[in-house]
């Protein structure tokens, strides 16, 4: 008996020394493996979560450390498991995105050591299914609904003839001065509607503003010229100016050649307009619409020939050059506001008002939310998650 226990002890010692030297013991398994349907989706996915292996927490010796986890799946609790995928050490969640809806699946998590691994107990079965509503997005839905309804509401208001207020826009006040000065000096006015086509909202806004500028040039009998880089823009500009001139009672002053097409090519167009500026030395230049890299070249040349320049674009990257080189600049949304202000088009006015409702909501929550948070009352930011 004593001899046996000696042998037993000996074997035990052998084992423990082997562990101490080689460290090939597998890491402790992860526990509490749970599987459930991934919520708020179209089905086909199951979320597997688990508690990290004790060898994945805190300072564990490098040799014992968990290197990652493998996720295994089976359709029967005790049957064959197939490896689904791998995830990094420290993770506690995995999404099985290859699940069939309505089929029960069992999952195991395998903690990987350097050479060996250990498996957890299988999870309870879970089935993937599709949900009707994505509840995470309820506040988004609410906000979208409010903004959309207010836009529609205000468009209808404007259509029914109600006067909607829009604040004065600084650059627009200068239009009259610029046109007047051009008449005095007997020099031309150039209007550049940008290099984009009529599918751009900015170009459309630019053409709308052109209508108002044209009304003034008709009144003052100033010379207006509009070189365009798209044939469709040319057609629209012609119609706009023609209408403005007859509305101002001077259809006799209108002439098709005021608007002409140069070329579609960005730099080709820029070079041509550049040449026009230098030769004609216009008294005023309007740059209203969607501009890209050419903004800088145009504004520089216009400034160089001494023109009053009124610019406007919603391209954030080009705004700095306009602000620095032009006398007045319509910044971003001001371009759209200006076209609504001038044209009184119900759909533009209504949208602008509807957007203001959205802005009001945002402004309110930024200030109230921040104050609440500062004084530790409540965190409102969840509303925008």
């Amino acid at each position, binding site marked *: 008996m004593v001899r046996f226990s000696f042998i037993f002890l000996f074997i035990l010692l052998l084992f423990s020394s082997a562990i101490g030297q080689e460290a090939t013991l597998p890491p402790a398994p992860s526990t509490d493996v749970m599987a459930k349907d991934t919520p708020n989706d179209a089905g086909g996915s199951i979320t597997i979560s688990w508690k990290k292996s004790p060898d994945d927490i805190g300072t564990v010796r490098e040799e014992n450390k968990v290197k990652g986890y493998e996720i295994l799946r089976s359709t029967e609790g005790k049957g064959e498991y197939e490896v689904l995928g791998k995830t990094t050490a420290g993770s506690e969640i995995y999404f099985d995105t290859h699940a069939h809806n309505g089929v029960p699946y069992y999952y195991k998590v395998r903690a990987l050591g350097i050479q060996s691994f250990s498996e957890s107990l299988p999870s309870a079965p879970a089935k993937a299914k599709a949900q009707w509503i994505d509840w995470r997005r309820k506040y*988004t839905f609410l906000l*979208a609904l409010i903004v959309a309804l207010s836009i529609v509401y205000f468009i209808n208001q404007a259509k029914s003839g109600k006067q909607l207020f829009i604040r*004065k826009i600084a650059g627009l006040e200068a239009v009259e001065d610029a046109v007047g000065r051009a008449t005095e000096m007997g020099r031309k006015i150039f209007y550049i509607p940008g290099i984009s086509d009529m599918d751009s909202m900015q170009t459309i806004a630019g053409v709308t503003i052109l209508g108002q500028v044209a009304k003034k040039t008709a009144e003052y009998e100033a010379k207006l010229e509009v070189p365009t880089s798209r044939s469709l823009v040319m057609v629209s500009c012609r119609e706009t100016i023609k209408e403005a001139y007859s509305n101002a009672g001077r259809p006799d002053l209108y002439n098709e050649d005021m608007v002409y097409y140069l070329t579609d090519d960005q730099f080709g167009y820029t070079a041509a307009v550049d040449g026009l500026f230098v030769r004609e030395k216009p008294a005023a230049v309007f740059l209203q619409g969607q501009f890209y890299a050419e903004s800088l070249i145009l504004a520089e040349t216009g400034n160089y020939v001494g023109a009053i320049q009124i610019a406007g674009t919603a391209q954030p990257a080009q705004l700095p050059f306009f602000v*620095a080189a032009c006398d007045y600049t319509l910044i971003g949304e001001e371009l759209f506001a200006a076209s609504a202000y001038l044209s009184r088009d119900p759909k533009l006015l209504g949208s602008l008002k509807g957007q*203001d409702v959205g802005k009001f909501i945002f*402004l309110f929550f930024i200030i109230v939310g*921040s104050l609440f948070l500062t004084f530790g009352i409540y965190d409102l930011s969840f509303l925008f*998650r």
Partner: protein
Amino acid sequence: METIGIWIAALLTLGIFSFLYKDNPFYKFCESLFVGVSAGYWFVTTFWQVFMPKLADNLVAGRFYYIIGAIFGVMMLLRLIPKIGWISRWSLALVVGTTAGLYFTRYLVSNGMVQVQYTIISLYVKGNLSQTIGNLVIVIGTFSGLIYFFFSKEHKGAFGGLAKLGIWFLMLSFGASFGYTVMSRMSLLIGRMDFLLGTWLGLIR
């Protein structure tokens, strides 16, 4: 072959640069070549990387409903024939609808709601003066900037003062964009100069 190529590239580079002196036929030639080559490049790329895998392969694999994509696509091309060009609007409508539908929610969330969410911050961070000032600047800057873009109220009194503050914030950010744009353009020029002086002439290592 490589040497010839470098010479061609260098001549084309100089051709474009010649525009800086004056518009000239050499520049025009390079520009036209650029327009043609880039169109050809796009044509070939979309053929091998979109048509073959997305359309042809799906049809070959028996997913015949993909023919709808081809039909809409051909409708798009019909714009080239003025008489029946109107039909291209059907495909355009699909493109416009897809972008409008996706943009509606995505912009509202990422550029609107998420930005507001991160602007709701504490205006006082205990023991961290610079963070406190930073947070204050973020909230006031965003708030006053938005006030400037609020069109339903005249810029008068305290509201006008906020709008004025807002425009200063905007100007500061435009100044930053300005600096960064200059940086970008200079980098591009450095790249070309390095090619001309280094790769082509071998003057720098």
